[in-house]
Every structure is written in structure tokens, then in C-alpha cells.
């Protein structure tokens, strides 16, 4: 047997399968009390949503000493436009903001902030994906990644449709079918680990040109190929203001977001 394969007792297996990192009540403005383990979040827009994605990642990675949850994330960079500088700035900004708002917290100088940023960065794992084959194989490889990093609670795929066209030959697969196929593969690999899955796609990448209200309804519980949160980011006439439509199984909530290249603020 390969050396990387772990042998574990039934008790260890049980512990591994049950001791899941909890990401509930994470980013409440979007997910309220969720997302629960195993749930799927679809984030789509015709605009660049990288700043929002970076904000979500930073919120997830904020160290527990700040009252937030300590989890790890695995990020599949399929479109190549992830900005690591912005991620770093956002982390520093969030820590500084938290410190200035909570003066009771221990002294936080620049060195301490840098230390915390490094701590946050050590909880994100990034896979740079360059083609469809590598994408599928890397999804299957998650089995091994979870053995090494058991505190991974969320997988982010940005963008799930990045290799769609390179896989189309003379017979073209429907866009929705393709998205579901990839989602199914990810869900099958992650099923024992009950991870939350967040994926992005461009808004035009859909077989249905209907509005969010007419889309297939969201599911209440995690189900294969089904989405639990459908989040649409809609640009407005004002350059940096976006309307956010959050669809769940029970409601459609609308929020407003200020988003520019470096900053995200909920209005």
C-alpha cells in the first residue's frame, strides 16, 4: 500500500468523520445561520466578484482569538485572476478594523498584525489549475488532501466553468448539465467530510436565460447536484454599488453592497 495511505481504527475513523469543523453562522449577511456542512453555494455575476470572494475568504480565516471560527479553506484557482495582494490587504484591514473597534483586545502593533495575517494565510490551501484533466484529477486528489489537512471546512472553486469550452467537441453539453456534472464529482469526493462547497460562474454561463426567481429552486438540505444558496451579484448604474440577490429554499433576500477593487462594504 502506498505510504501516503493512512491506516486508522474504527474509533479514529468515527472521530474523523464526526469531528467536522463548524462553519455555521459564517458571513451572516449572506448565509444567516448557515452554511451547514455539505451545503452548496453558487455565486454568479456578469461583473468581477473577486473582492467579494476575497472578503468571504478573509471572514472565514479570521483567527479564533477574534471571536470568529477557525477553519481552513481549499481554493481551486481555475481562472487565474485571483489577486493575492488584495487578499493580503483585506486580511490586514480586517484585523486592524477589529482591533480598533475592540480596544480591550491585547496590544496589536504592525508585527502582531503581520503575524496574524501569516496565521490566516496558513489556513488557506491553493491549487492552481491549468486544464480540464488536471481539474478532475485534483478534485479526486481531495481525498488525500483531507487526510493531511483535516480542518478544511470549505472548498471554493473559482470558476467552475473555466474549462467548459475546452471540453466541448462537436456535440455540445448543456451548460447547466456541465455545472451539475462537476458539482456531482466534487460532492461525491467530499461526501464523508461534509464540506461546504462554494463555486463561482459567470452569469451568462447558464442554459436558462431567466431571472433568479425562475431558476430551479434551492434545496433545504444538501442533495447531490443541488444548490442551497444561489447568490447573484448585479451591477447598478452606480459604478461601485451592487445589488445582491440571495436565494435560499425559503426566501429571496435582497441586499446592497459597495464593492471596488480593494474594499467591500455592506450597506
Amino acid at each position: 500500500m502506498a505510504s501516503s495511505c493512512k491506516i486508522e481504527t474504527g474509533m479514529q475513523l468515527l472521530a474523523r468523520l464526526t469531528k467536522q469543523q463548524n462553519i455555521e453562522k459564517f458571513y451572516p449577511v449572506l448565509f444567516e445561520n448557515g452554511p451547514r456542512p455539505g451545503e452548496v453555494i453558487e455565486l454568479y455575476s456578469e461583473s468581477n466578484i473577486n473582492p467579494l470572494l476575497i472578503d468571504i475568504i478573509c471572514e472565514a480565516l479570521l483567527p479564533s482569538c477574534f471571536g470568529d471560527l477557525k477553519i481552513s479553506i481549499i481554493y481551486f484557482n481555475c481562472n487565474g485572476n485571483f489577486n493575492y495582494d488584495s487578499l493580503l490587504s483585506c486580511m490586514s484591514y480586517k484585523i486592524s478594523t477589529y482591533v480598533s473597534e475592540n480596544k480591550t483586545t491585547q496590544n496589536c502593533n504592525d508585527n502582531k498584525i503581520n503575524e496574524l495575517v501569516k496565521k490566516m494565510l496558513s489556513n488557506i490551501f491553493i491549487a492552481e489549475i491549468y486544464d480540464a484533466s488536471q481539474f478532475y484529477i485534483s478534485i479526486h486528489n481531495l481525498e488525500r488532501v483531507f487526510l493531511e489537512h483535516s480542518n478544511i471546512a470549505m472548498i471554493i472553486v473559482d470558476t467552475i466553468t473555466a474549462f467548459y469550452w475546452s471540453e466541448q467537441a462537436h456535440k455540445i453539453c448543456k451548460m447547466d448539465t456541465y455545472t451539475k456534472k462537476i458539482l456531482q464529482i466534487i460532492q461525491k469526493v467530499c461526501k464523508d467530510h461534509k464540506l461546504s462547497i462554494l463555486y463561482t460562474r459567470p452569469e451568462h454561463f447558464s442554459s436558462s436565460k431567466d431571472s433568479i426567481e425562475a431558476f430551479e429552486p434551492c434545496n433545504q438540505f444538501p442533495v447531490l447536484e443541488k444548490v442551497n444558496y444561489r447568490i447573484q451579484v448585479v451591477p447598478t448604474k452606480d459604478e461601485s454599488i451592487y445589488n445582491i440577490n440571495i436565494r435560499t429554499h425559503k426566501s429571496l433576500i435582497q441586499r446592497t453592497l459597495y464593492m471596488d477593487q480593494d474594499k467591500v462594504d455592506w450597506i
Partner: protein
Amino acid sequence: MQKISIIEHTLLTENVLKRLANRRILTILDFLNEDVDKISCAAKITIPQVLDIRNQIFDKYSAPVLCGLILLERHLNKCLNTGIESINTMLNEGVPIGHITELCGLANSGKTQLCHQLAVNCVKHTENTVLYIDTKGDFSAKRIQFLLHSYKKSYKEMAEIMFKIKVTRIWNMEELIELLQNLKKGTIVLNKLSMIIVDSLPCLMLQHLGEESKIGLALLNQFVNYCRFLCDHLQICVVCVNVQTRWVDQDLVELEDEKKHYSTSFQEPTYVEKQNRCLGKYWQHIPALVLLLDKNPLLDNEVDDNTIRQLSLSVLTSNSKVLKQCNLTLSSTGVR
């Protein structure tokens, strides 16, 4: 998807491959998608042996999972100096390394001139090499020589600089992909490559316009994948020239007060000019940076029989809104 037969593993003998093929397990993905115990039964090998093959596939073909800390060191603030001060100031030091940059503009807006200038500036004072992919057949060595002449370079210096600009003429997407594939494999090696300029992409893509099979998009997706790999692994920037198209749409606008309703509403046609970036929706989100080059003919002037054209270069957002802008001049001595 690659065939399972490309994996070099002692257990994957001809007989095992045949047995797998009988169960329609032909590709690596088929192998990974199937349950381990079913493969074990089908191929008549033990479960640990199946796991060993799987691990070899993962080691060789999956993306390495890197900790955020490592990536931080790799990606910090890397830009390529364009040699044009106003552009460097606008872009915070230059064109981003590791990403695809799009340079778009209407026909005759000076895109090729700017590409020539970027190529010269990139190699002028460094050991860098630039790969200039000419798809229109209008790369002009004379123009480069003229630019260098204006910098008062000797013939020897000109030759040294021009030697560092590698020009290739490509006439279709397949050739372009083959070239990038060879760069990826290492069968073509360019020392100190710092920039690839593709002038221009729509020339190749428009050959596939209207095809029902969407082969053009498949090729464009492959091109993007190779570019991303080269950008990251060779730490270079890729500049793709795109064309801006201008459409005049006739919109019908109701002039009457909306509160009043008439049986026959009075309408008057208005004409709205729309400018689009070519290459379709898929391409719109691909470049990390979109630069729009525009000319201002009203501001052009003449000095000593030399026409000085005024250009503006803007950074566009994903919604095609102008984020930043700088002014450039185009004359016989180049773009400044």
C-alpha cells in the same frame, strides 16, 4: 482526457488495460470515477494495487496544493516595466506579471504601434526576451529600427536589441496553440522570456466566426489555459491585442410623458453608439487587466512635418467602465 495507457506503472500491463477497456475504463478520469473495489474485480488486481495506481496518478497529474504562505512570497507586486512613464504610473509600476493583459481599441487606434514600443522598451536596457506573435503580418522590423535610431543607438546596439525580440508569424489558432504547447513542454526555450505579445487575437478567432461546433471557443479556451500556465511558471506577462467594435443601434424611445397613455404612442428613433470588445462573452472575464487605447484626432498636431497623434490609454473594469486613464503621444519617435 488522457488515456489510462499513458500511465507508466508496472501493474498496468497489456492484459490489465484490456480488462479495464472491456469495462469501458479507458481514460484516467474513468479510472478515478470508478469504485476502487470494482476496478480491483475488473482488472484482477488487489485493492492496494489499485490505490497505488491512483496515488501515482495524483502525484503526477493533480495540481500541487500549496499553503497560502508560500503563494504570498511568489505573487507579491510583480510588474513588468513598460518603459513609458505615464503607463507605469497608471498601472502602479507596469504590466502585471503572471496574468493576461488585453490591449483593445478601434481599428487604427495605435495598438500595433504600442506593441512595437512595448517590445522595444522591454528588451532595451535588460537581458529580457520578448516573443512577438504576429497574426496580421504587419510586424515591421523597419519600424523597430526607426525607433531605435531615434534613441541614437549604434547599429551594433540595434542588432543586439532586435535579436532579443523574437518574431513569429502565426495564421491560425491551431498553430498558436502548438507554439504555446511547445513552450510549455520546453521543446522551444527562449532565454529570459518576459513577455508574449499576441497581435492580434481576433484575426485568428474570426476565422471561426459562426461555426456551429464552437471549435473556435474550444481553441480559445486552450489558448487561455496555456497562457495561464506560462504566465505562472515562466513569470511572464501575456499581452493580447483585441479589437473594439463599434455598433450604431436604433433605439425607439418614447418621448411622451409616461403617465399619459395614448392609443398610438408617439415614438422617435434615436441612434446609440455601442462599443464592444471583440471575442465574445467567454473572453470578457479572462484578462486580469483590460487596457483601452483611443485616439483624439482633434488634438493631433504637426511639428516639423512630423504628425504627433494624441492617444489615451484607459484601464477598464469588467463592466467596461473607465477606471483610470493616461495620455500618450504617438510620433515617428514612438509612443511616449
